[in-house]
């Protein structure tokens, strides 16, 4: 493989060098500078790091602005507090329960809450948190009310008491390391790419078979579990639980740590937690002015570090090294081979939007191995048809099926899993990711998803689209034609049985267009049914065996390209009647 060079371990080491150095620095600080106070702050930072690492799942990876993380923290603290202080249960029992209960609660509310969008989701989660706070304050018999519960047992592991100071610090940071590694495993590689696609390009995610809802719910539940663990440690380390554990300020601190540290980054979570726990302490000398200084410092960090401190460290490190990252080694893999397709049947499809009929009783059939071109003036309903076929819209009437599998009850990602692939009118690529990763996500919904392997296969798909040279370049920096071809490569990589392309030739150079045509003919030869929506009639008539022309939502002509292009209605739709010219 041409792109292969450095073995992956070396890259790992190079990119992680500043972080390893940072961890060593922190350890040195703790070892030599840390008095009990210093150790206590670091322990507290560890607890918050765990909270924020959890928050990165829902906020960083799933991209949902949850304001419930503080409530999960409080819930964890109260589970430990109530079971520990009132029933005398030990850490070995209360800790797992403090993780499980918030997670179970998250699972319970996930379904209704996660379907809400942005600010509604934020406020719904905040509402739940506020209800929890009101409960903690007013359910005195259970929670001890505003005074809280005293005498929460310390951490005791298998009979050994983990005392505050060094032992607790090591224990907490051990859990941070464990939680960090687990989070890393759950979000690295293919899984991270899947989250990123769901977050940044939900349409593309569905089109490769990714179930955004389940991913978001998983992230929410994981966040809750981490939040509960952090809350439990908070309760154990303080020995008391009071409603302040539910206070909105915990949520604000968590959010601030995530953003200041670096959204979606585990290193960012740790950096944010360590900094924001220490910052007010460093400024204590200013007495009642210290929080003003804290606010000013926070404002500066937000303005000066757009990707958080983790991003700043990475950028500085990269600049210091002066080189771009070495390309990872890719295992070679077989050429994408197609093993047949399926017939698409569209029957009597009708769809209107607010009284305007976009599609009217459309009939369409694409046989395996056939390329059908769909043409029509702007607004004639072409993209609406593509969106209906791929499940983004629900038809008002009519049916769609692939061979004998009906689409009606299915959601977009389920339709994609039947073997339907598509491209979009404006390429749905993650701008900040490389082309190869944008293509590799095609394998995210498969059972054995593995990024290096997927990249290897993605490189093949890119090669077929003539893009292997640009595989590692950022998608946003590519010309429109390259982006379109990359999206076609992503669709092709999925080995679809039916493929629909929405204006694939727009913005392509002649060479690129030839590549595209070759690629699509290859697919058809392998038995794939292909539907191409395009404005470029020369391109389409050379490619498709049949053309279908839509106007105002109705099929006005269908047949061989020659017949359709000569059809008077089609000519009128495009050129207008000759006698109309002056």
């Amino acid at each position, binding site marked *: 493989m041409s792109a292969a060079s450095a073995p992956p371990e070396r890259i790992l080491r190079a990119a992680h060098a500043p972080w390893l150095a940072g961890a060593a620095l922190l350890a040195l600080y703790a070892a030599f500078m840390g008095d009990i106070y210093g*150790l206590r702050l670091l322990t507290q930072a560890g607890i918050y790091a765990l909270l924020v690492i959890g928050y990165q799942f829902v906020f960083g990876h799933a991209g949902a602005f949850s304001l419930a993380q503080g409530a999960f923290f409080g819930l964890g603290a109260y589970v430990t507090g109530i079971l520990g202080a009132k029933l005398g249960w030990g850490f070995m029992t209360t800790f797992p329960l403090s993780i499980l209960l918030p997670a179970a609660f998250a699972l319970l509310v996930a379904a209704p809450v996660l379907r809400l969008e942005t600010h509604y989701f934020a406020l719904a989660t905040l509402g739940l948190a506020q209800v929890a706070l009101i409960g903690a304050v007013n359910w005195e018999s259970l929670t001890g009310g505003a005074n809280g519960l005293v005498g929460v047992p310390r951490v005791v592991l298998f009979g050994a008491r983990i005392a505050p100071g060094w032992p607790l610090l090591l224990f907490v940071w051990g859990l941070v390391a464990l939680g960090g590694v687990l989070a890393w495993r759950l979000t690295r590689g293919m899984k991270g790419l899947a989250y990123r696609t769901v977050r940044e390009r939900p349409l593309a995610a569905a089109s490769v078979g990714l179930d955004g809802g389940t991913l978001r719910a998983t992230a929410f539940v994981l966040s809750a579990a981490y939040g509960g663990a952090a809350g439990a440690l908070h309760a154990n380390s303080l020995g008391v639980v009071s409603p302040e554990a539910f206070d909105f300020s915990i949520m604000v601190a968590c959010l601030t740590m995530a953003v200041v540290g670096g959204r979606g980054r585990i290193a960012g979570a740790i950096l944010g937690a360590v900094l924001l726990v220490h910052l007010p*302490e460093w400024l204590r000398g200013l007495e009642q002015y210290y929080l003003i200084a804290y606010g000013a410092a926070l404002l500066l960090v937000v303005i000066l570090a757009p990707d958080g401190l983790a991003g700043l460290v990475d950028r500085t490190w990269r600049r210091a090294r002066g080189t771009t990252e070495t390309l990872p080694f890719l295992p070679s893999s077989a050429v994408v081979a197609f093993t047949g397709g399926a017939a698409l049947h569209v029957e009597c499809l009708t769809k209107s939007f607010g009284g305007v009929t976009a599609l009217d009783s459309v009939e369409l059939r694409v046989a395996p191995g056939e390329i059908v071109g769909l043409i029509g003036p702007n607004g004639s309903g072409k993209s609406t048809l593509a969106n209906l076929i791929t499940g983004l819209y629900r038809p008002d009437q009519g049916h769609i099926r692939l061979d004998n599998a009906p689409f009606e009850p299915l959601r977009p990602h389920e339709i994609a899993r039947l073997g339907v692939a598509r491209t979009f009118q404006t390429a749905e690529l993650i701008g900040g990711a490389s082309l190869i990763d944008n293509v590799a996500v095609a394998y995210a919904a498969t059972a054995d998803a593995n990024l290096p392997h997927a990249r290897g296969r993605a490189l093949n798909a890119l090669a077929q689209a003539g893009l292997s040279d640009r595989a590692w370049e950022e998608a946003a920096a590519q010309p429109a034609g390259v982006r379109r071809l990359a999206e076609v490569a992503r669709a092709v990589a999925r080995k679809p049985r039916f493929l629909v392309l929405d204006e694939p030739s727009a913005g392509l150079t002649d060479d690129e267009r030839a590549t595209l045509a070759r690629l699509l003919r290859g697919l058809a030869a392998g038995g794939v049914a292909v539907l191409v929506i395009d404005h470029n009639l020369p391109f389409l008539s050379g490619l498709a065996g049949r053309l279908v022309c839509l106007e105002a939502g109705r099929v006005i002509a269908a047949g061989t390209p020659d017949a359709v292009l000569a059809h008077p209605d089609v000519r009128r739709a495009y050129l207008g009647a000759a006698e109309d010219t002056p």
Partner: protein
Amino acid sequence: MNRVLRAAAVATTLLSSIPLAASAENVRIPVLVPITGILALEGTSQRNGAVMALDEKPSGIEAGYDVTDTAASPETAVNALERALSQPNVVAVAASIFGPQMLAMMPIAAERKVPLITISGTAKITEMGNAYVFRFFPTDAVVKVAQARYVVEELKKTRVALVYQTTAYGQSGQAHLTDNFKRLGAQIVFEEGLAPTVKDMAPVLAKLKAANPDVIVLQLHSGPTALFVKQAAGLNLPIVAGSAMHQPSTAALLEPAELKGVCAESGSSPISGGSPTMEKFTAAYRAKFNAEPDAFAVAQYDGTRMVLDAIGKGARNAAQVRDVLATGSYEGLAMTYKSDGTGNMAHDAVIVCYDGSSRVPKIVKRYAAR
């Protein structure tokens, strides 16, 4: 691994327990109180009281101090305490009025053997067998008795409407008031907890009126107390409020006429005068802080003075200071302080009432714990 942990723990303990011989000149009494957040008002009085005592250097003793904000959470208070204890020669700590913060700090104080000088009213803090907590403000168990007795015995009211805050202060007071009224044979005909953010008191007043009480008993913070008194003016019911009402900053929110017939419990009322020493204190406080002193300031002043007095008499370290606090007695501005064995130093409460002509209340009744 376990051995490493244990070794580290041992090392830490050794490091922190090296006995440091302190001279009277370099002892430290850190002031750890909430000067921001929801209890900033009370915490600021506390700070002022402590700072005043420390700056006065009675009998020439210079005790170093710095003021650290404990804000609103137990966590911050624990951080502040650990930070303070990382300095040498800490003989005592002026510690937060906020109950949950005290509860979180107490185990650390006990472990490090440093006495905490507080004015937190939360009864529980002296009920936990912790030998390092000393409270210079009468506990809820004392002042709530006074408040309830004044209502029943002096005002002869038996149908009580109780409105309290859903905070540590409010809920702790509510529990004691409920017990005391029951013991005294009065009936609580209406009871409701209010969040400190409540602005409109009309709904609670409407329900309260419907219950037809003959007296209103409050356990609210400063702002809500003033709001309540203001909006309850039309009911023409006597109000016996919690200690927040005696604070000059509360009275400042109301017109003197609105205060007529309003009483409050407290540990003392410095602006009401009563003794030359108290008047001198009040004048000095005004001059120093450009503010009116309240009972919290006096109590923290007295407590801090008692520590300084102990040092003046030869106590040189935290253990010795603790012993003096636990066994000695001290004649303070507000009263004579002596531990009851659990760390409660203050046993007297006063009831102050406003006569409607000024914002300075008069002490109408003193209660001593029996």
